[in-house]
């Protein structure tokens, strides 16, 4: 049967980019559909009626939503170049850290950038703690996945790449060599892995987008 794989995404979204990275790791050909979130396509609404969000993967007509659910599906469907480890305990740890990054780190980092006053202070404090937790988890490993990148590295590319851009725009100093040297080294390594590098949005475009948003928010 001819494989038909479509991905609905948004150029700047770390969630849709992570699915693209997973597909590229597996060498899966796919059709990419760029969505305009202000004007969502009927297809997107049909394929993800519950959340109406990107990314959505459609494989042979069957839709899957939620980025980490999609990546696990990709890993189980195309079994070469594994993204999750084989051992059940290692898999549990991988899922744990991916969840920690998505549920704790991302919101704290995002709120550190965009909130104001006391909320901002609290978000910055929380974000610092979480970055320290990641620093301690990295230990002496090259990547969270060990010698090769894995699910956690892909999910954490928000920290390595997107937050780097947010930091530049907002003047925050959370991801620095003084505070989290291992995490900084890791983020340099991870964004220079070719499968990640080739599938990240343009940094200039991201900075321009965030700068405009930051200027609006400061008014």
């Amino acid at each position: 049967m001819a494989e038909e794989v479509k991905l609905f995404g948004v150029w700047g979204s770390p969630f849709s980019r992570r699915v693209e990275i997973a597909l590229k790791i597996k060498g899966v050909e796919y059709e990419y559909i760029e969505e305009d979130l202000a004007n969502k396509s009927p297809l997107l609404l049909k394929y993800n009626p519950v959340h109406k969000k990107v990314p959505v993967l459609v494989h042979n007509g069957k839709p899957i939503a939620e980025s980490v659910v999609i990546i696990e599906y990709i890993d189980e469907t195309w079994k070469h170049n594994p993204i999750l480890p084989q051992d059940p305990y290692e898999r549990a740890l991988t899922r744990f850290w991916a969840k920690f990054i998505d549920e704790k780190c991302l919101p704290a980092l995002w709120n550190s950038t965009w909130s104001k006053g006391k909320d901002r202070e609290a978000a910055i404090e929380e974000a610092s703690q979480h970055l320290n937790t990641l620093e301690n988890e990295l230990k002496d490993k090259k990547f969270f996945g060990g010698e090769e990148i894995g699910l956690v590295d892909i999910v954490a590319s928000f920290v390595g790449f997107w937050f780097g851009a947010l930091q530049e725009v907002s003047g925050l100093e959370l991801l620095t060599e003084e505070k989290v040297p291992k995490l900084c080294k890791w983020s340099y390594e991870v964004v220079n892995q070719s499968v990640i590098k080739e599938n990240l949005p343009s940094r200039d475009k991201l900075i321009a987008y965030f700068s405009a948003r930051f200027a609006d928010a400061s008014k």
Partner: protein
Amino acid sequence: MAKSDVKVLGAWPSPFVMRPTIALNIKSVEYEFLQEDLGSKSELLLKSNPVHKKIPVLIHGDKPVCESLIIVEYIDETWSSAPSILPSDPYDRATARFWAAYVDDKVFPSMKEIFIAEGVEAKKAAIQQLVDGLILLEDAYVKCSKGKPFFGGNQIGYLDIAFGSYLGWLIVTEKFNEVKLLDEAKTPGLAKWADIFCADPAVKDVMPETDKLAEYAKVLAKMRAASK
């Protein structure tokens, strides 16, 4: 495996704690349940889950596994002989994981919202939000079960565990607010499923009694009122 090789750190009122215990029961794995004191955290908990300091934690040998649904997947993959908890087909697995995430991210917060909401209008709105979510789950149940009793088919599966673990609290919510949340009119499939789930041998001994849970909910409400 010797009983002491598998421990679950938990507390009886927690829906999250029920998930690993149901999963272990399904696999017929013996385990030691270590009840955490409500209100204080043991050394073992703080050591086993330093990041979140929360229950449940599964300790297998000397390895701690945290986060209830992650523990369920670990149990399924470690004791891999039948019965399976996750479906075998990758698309069905993705569907089960999607809805389990929906339950945790949308349904559970809606339920909590009802307890916290102040005033008649706020409560009504919170109840409606929960009911809307349950109607979506009814549709998911019909699609996943394909005429069989559980989301997982003939046996309890991952999504049954993820959603079923909230049933005790759902019943308490119904009692406190004098409203029917799962009923034959709006959610006929789920209404039947709930009874079958609660009666299942893997579930019945770990599902807390409604009266006990209701008492506990009253204590929580008093504590919340006192802290204002």
